[in-house]
């Protein structure tokens, strides 16, 4: 009766409450929370993989409050299963990291509540992708948003953390408001269209069941499908972080503890992508402008995200902007897929969806890796400021190795996983370009240009992130004193790095793994998608071959170097500095100076503010320089809007005077008004 897919979320909840109940003794609740969260997530991962391999799909519907259209409907299909993989996988890895990184605080405060929120977040994310009823979905969605908000506000004694928390809370609530309206429209359209479409006498289920929406897709929804699409794009896009709704990401991710940032950026924002895809399955055949919208949103998010990332010198803020960029790449892929469907080009559709979906998984892995690596570095040095770091690879060799793999993967370099998904999107766009028909060709050209620009800029950004943080000499004493993090911090980083390489080298296999999901999205017969990705599969095999060749050749060349250097002088010396007598670590390029040419080029968009005290005398006493790149959309759009709204609403402040009697009167008056309205 109770579906197996509900077991892991239930286990997670039990673990969370146990951690709180053990809260008196900090160390016990900490260990219990971490071990339990890891174990429950791994069980979830195992169940999901087993169900995906055996194609064991299930839907279970339990009655709930039918008067508001709710039912406790749970479903497990290829799409849900695909999103459950990163949810459970990254939850387990992040719990291990949290065990190491939170430990130093376990004497000062009870970590039980933190683990409760972590477990609730993981469980609610799983429930979001399992829910098959709008009410249940929204409840899970809100629990997910609130638990992640509580996790962001973990260090709430710091002012900037509280500010970030409020920004996130407001953003997520506004997003949910759009979703509420969207589901109401879907429910209305579904109940108008479904009865005609389904055989009479059959149990209909609750009004807000997803099955109803899907059944009504052909009939009732047609007229409003465009509105529903836009509402879902805004509502889910706020969670996913598309431009210009991304403003909460660069605030919330740096404020949260690193294992939480990794989980939020790696998988939580992907539930927004899941939401868009799930809603698309209700809407029937896509209209071309939906695909165009996604392509435009993806191109803008990708380019704006990577440009703002380039301008940051706080490493976690930089990574947060890269999430915006990668959501953009995912949207590009999905947009290509939608256009392929609507212009009846199955190859384009399959490749676009496959690339977009695979990028969801890949981004979860490498962004989780990068946030955890940055977290380990922050943990060791006590600063997120890249311009105070440097030389960490010598001091933290394993963390550095992991971060390097993540940086190469996110830059889309062969043969790592980022290259595989971007290659698929490129292929989709190229196919669209090569096929006859102007619209597909134009979209293909736009996607190719945008992806190429994003790729070049991302490589610039991640050579900066890795090079400035981990290479060179330490720029400040805290970086010089850093030591390698403990095993519970290093192991997750290395595990995710191995996953990046594994998916890159098992690209052909990963492609056949996601083919069923892609087939569902592209509206193809089961098995048709696997045939269409055949050439791409062969291509990925050649990429693996190329990787093997590169590895073999470079190995041989390294060997030749060893042989040639034998018996010759191999000397250690200082860095050649063109004859300068007293070099200093502060002469190195910094993150800001490394990116300056590019950020200067796009200065009109970035609007970096600089404050400095120049050197004026021949024997300078003091000089300073500071630059900051605040978010353009937060500064120029949301701040004035919220300021205006605040000013307008403060006129209503006379209603709120603190007299309890009058508040009770408001309640009574409101009840009376409702009563009169319903009776009349």
């Amino acid at each position, binding site marked *: 009766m109770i579906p197996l897919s509900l077991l892991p979320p239930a286990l997670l909840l039990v673990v969370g409450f146990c951690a709180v109940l053990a809260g008196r003794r900090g160390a016990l609740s900490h260990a219990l929370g971490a071990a339990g969260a890891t174990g429950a997530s791994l069980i979830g991962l195992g169940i999901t993989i087993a169900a995906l391999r055996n194609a064991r799909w299930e839907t279970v519907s339990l009655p709930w409050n039918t008067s508001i259209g709710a039912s406790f409907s749970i479903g497990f299909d290829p799409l849900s299963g695909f999103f459950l993989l990163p949810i459970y996988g990254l939850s387990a890895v992040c719990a291990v990291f949290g065990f190491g990184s939170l430990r130093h605080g376990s004497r000062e405060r009870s970590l039980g509540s933190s683990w409760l929120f972590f477990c609730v977040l993981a469980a609610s994310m799983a429930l979001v992708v399992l829910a098959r009823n709008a009410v249940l979905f929204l409840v899970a969605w809100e629990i997910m948003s609130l638990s992640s908000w509580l996790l962001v506000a973990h260090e709430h004694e710091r002012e900037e953390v509280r500010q970030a928390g409020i920004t996130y809370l407001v953003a997520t609530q506004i997003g949910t408001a759009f979703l509420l309206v969207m589901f109401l429209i879907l429910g209305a359209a579904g109940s108008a269209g479904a009865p005609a479409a389904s055989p009479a006498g059959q149990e209909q289920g609750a009004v807000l069941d997803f099955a109803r929406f899907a059944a009504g897709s052909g009939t009732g929804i047609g007229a409003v499908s465009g509105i529903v699409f836009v509402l879902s794009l805004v509502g889910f896009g706020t969670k996913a972080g598309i431009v210009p709704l991304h403003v909460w990401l660069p605030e919330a991710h740096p404020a949260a503890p690193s294992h939480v940032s990794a989980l939020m950026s790696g998988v939580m924002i992907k539930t927004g992508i899941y939401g868009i895809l799930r809603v698309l399955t209700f809407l029937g055949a896509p209209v071309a402008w939906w695909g165009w919208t996604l392509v435009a949103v993806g191109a803008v998010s990708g380019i704006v995200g990577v440009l703002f990332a380039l301008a940051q010198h706080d490493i976690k803020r930089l990574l947060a902007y890269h999430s915006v960029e990668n959501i953009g790449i995912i949207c590009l892929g999905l947009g290509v897929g939608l256009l392929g469907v609507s212009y009846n080009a199955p190859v384009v559709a399959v490749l676009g969806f496959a690339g977009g979906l695979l990028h969801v998984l890949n981004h979860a892995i490498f962004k989780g890796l990068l946030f955890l690596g940055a977290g380990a570095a922050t943990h060791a040095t006590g600063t997120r400021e890249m311009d105070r770091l440097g030389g960490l*690879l010598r001091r933290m060799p394993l963390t550095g190795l992991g971060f*390097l793999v993540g940086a190469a993967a996110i830059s889309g370099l062969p043969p790592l996983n980022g290259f595989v998904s*971007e290659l698929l999107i*490129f292929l989709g766009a*190229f196919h669209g370009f090569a096929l006859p028909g102007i619209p597909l060709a134009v979209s293909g050209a736009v996607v190719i240009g945008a992806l190429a620009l994003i790729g*070049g800029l991302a490589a610039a950004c991640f050579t900066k992130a890795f090079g400035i943080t981990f290479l060179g000499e330490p720029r400040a004493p805290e970086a010089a004193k850093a030591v390698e993090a403990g095993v519970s911090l290093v192991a997750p980083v290395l595990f995710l790095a191995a996953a990046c390489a594994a998916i890159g080298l098992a690209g052909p296999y990963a492609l056949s793994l996601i083919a069923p999901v892609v087939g569902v999205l592209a509206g193809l017969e089961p098995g048709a998608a696997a045939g269409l990705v055949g050439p791409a599969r*062969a291509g990925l095999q050649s990429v693996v071959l190329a990787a093997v060749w590169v590895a073999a050749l470079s190995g041989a060349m390294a060997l030749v170097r060893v042989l*040639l250097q034998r018996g010759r002088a191999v000397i250690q010396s200082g*860095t050649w500095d063109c004859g300068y007598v007293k070099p200093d670590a502060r002469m190195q390029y910094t993150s800001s100076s*490394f990116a300056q040419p590019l950020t200067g080029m796009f200065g009109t968009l970035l609007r970096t503010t600089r404050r400095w005290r120049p050197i004026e005398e021949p024997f300078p006493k003091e000089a300073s320089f500071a630059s900051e790149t605040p978010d353009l959309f937060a500064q120029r759009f949301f701040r004035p809007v919220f300021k205006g709204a605040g000013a307008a609403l403060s006129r209503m402040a006379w209603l709120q005077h603190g007299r309890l009697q009058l508040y009770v009167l408001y309640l009574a008056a409101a009840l009376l008004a409702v009563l009169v309205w319903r009776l009349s």
Partner: protein
Amino acid sequence: MGTAGISVLQLALSLVLAPLVPGIANRVKAVVAGRRGQPLLQAYHDIAKLLLKGSVYSRTTTWVFRAGPALGCAAAMVALAVLPWGADASLLSFEGDLILFAGLFGLMRFLTILSALDTGSAFEGMGASREAWFSALAEPALLLALASLAGKAQSLSLAAVLAGPGIGGGRGAAVLLAAGAVFIVFLSENARIPVDDPATHLELTMIHEVMVLDHSGVDLAYIQYGSTLKLWALGGLIVGILRPRTGQWMADCAIGLGGMLCVGIATGALESFIARLRLARVPQLLVAGGAMAALALALSLVR
């Protein structure tokens, strides 16, 4: 001779002859300037000499610095295995191999930049910053140019893209524009005038050369060989775009070699007659390359 045999032969020819092209360019520059110039085989001499030298490593550097040259050179070799010569496919040919071609050079550049940052030198940091800047702008130009040709060829593998009739076909304008865009990328990526000056001796003005200031011995030999391979690969791409096809592999080979000779001569001539651009103007050149590629794309849409 089988197709695979021809591909292997062509790859071997590329690997052996690549260091000759900078020699040709230098000889042209010398002749134009009225000098006798260095020997044609100077690059071979340099590489051989460096291979037999000891090495100096900075105490700041890590394994990244040591791994970079060998990995980057290997990536360039494999990229040459992706690039086809004649009508025959290359060794690593598949639908979408042109993205692997670009990606391998991306990997090479990533490693070069990180090796430079690994030294902690202000000069090398500056070079790395400029390399990242220019290459970020060159990437769209290259891929858009290739996309325009792929649209014409109705295929995504370099073998088909480059198997077109060259400028002899009906759509000469789009092909010429794409070749022009790739030529700008070629100049920028290979650190040639007007983007960078391979002969400069002032660290402040170098881009590519300044990134390898700290490399020595075998590592420097790998880097120099790798950069000649990159020159050959991107030059070969231009030749492939413009050349006609005969269908006979020997004739194709001869045309390919002749084309590379022309690339060397053209590079040398260009370096003799124009000056280097001011640094701030280089992005304009690259954006112009991107615009040419976009125009080629728009032209190839009309069909």
